[in-house]
């Protein structure tokens, strides 16, 4: 089974702090994603990465950055946390096209990190 592990289930941080959210997958997937989830808005893509050291902005990248130094690990960074970044953050991974046919389209999710910024 694919396992996507997010390092923290709950985090409480103060405004202005630098925050790191970590995600590790054990299936050698090329693609990794960070979403934030807010009531009524579903999941919105913050950043994604399709290879080590490669990253692409999603729909809502402002206030966030990412790091992918190793294939299995994708970190989301809040440079200076603000209260409007209080949310649930979900990490996902997927294989690329060509491996397992269209399975590259399936994303596998971690359990989420609920971040509160006070």
């Amino acid at each position, binding site marked *: 089974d694919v396992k996507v592990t997010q390092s923290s289930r709950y985090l409480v941080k103060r405004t202005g702090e630098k925050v790191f959210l970590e995600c590790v997958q054990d299936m050698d997937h090329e693609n990794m994603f960070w979403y934030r989830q807010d009531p009524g808005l579903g999941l919105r893509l913050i950043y994604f990465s399709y290879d080590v050291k490669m990253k692409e902005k999603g729909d809502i990248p402002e206030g966030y950055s990412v790091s992918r130094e190793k294939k299995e690990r994708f970190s989301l960074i809040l440079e200076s946390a603000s209260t409007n970044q209080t949310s649930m953050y*979900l990490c996902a991974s997927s294989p*690329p096209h060509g491996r397992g046919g269209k399975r590259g*389209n399936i994303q596998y*999710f971690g359990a989420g990190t609920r971040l509160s910024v006070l």
Partner: protein
Amino acid sequence: AQSVTQPDIHITVSEGASLELRCNYSYGATPYLFWYVQSPGQGLQLLLKYFSGDTLVQGIKGFEAEFKRSQSSFNLRKPSVHWSDAAEYFCAVGSAFNNAGNMLTFGGGTRLMVKP
């Protein structure tokens, strides 16, 4: 750009009753469509997917969904709901990027409550 609409924010059904959750999408090409379920405090679990072929797809936990191109819909159904089905359900459409994989665009979700 693609988009997904789930018109029902909350739905309450009685245990044993049938269920249909609506999903409408906007996408220029043939879509890849997904339904995910999120139990309280958990991540998302894939229920089922449509890539091509038979428009009625079967998933886990007794769920099915039907792709209707003419209506741009991908509604989720279950003939008899169990209390354990109470959760939030997300419909998503996939779009290709740079030959590496697909990004997903999610609907806003439908929260299902089940009455005993």
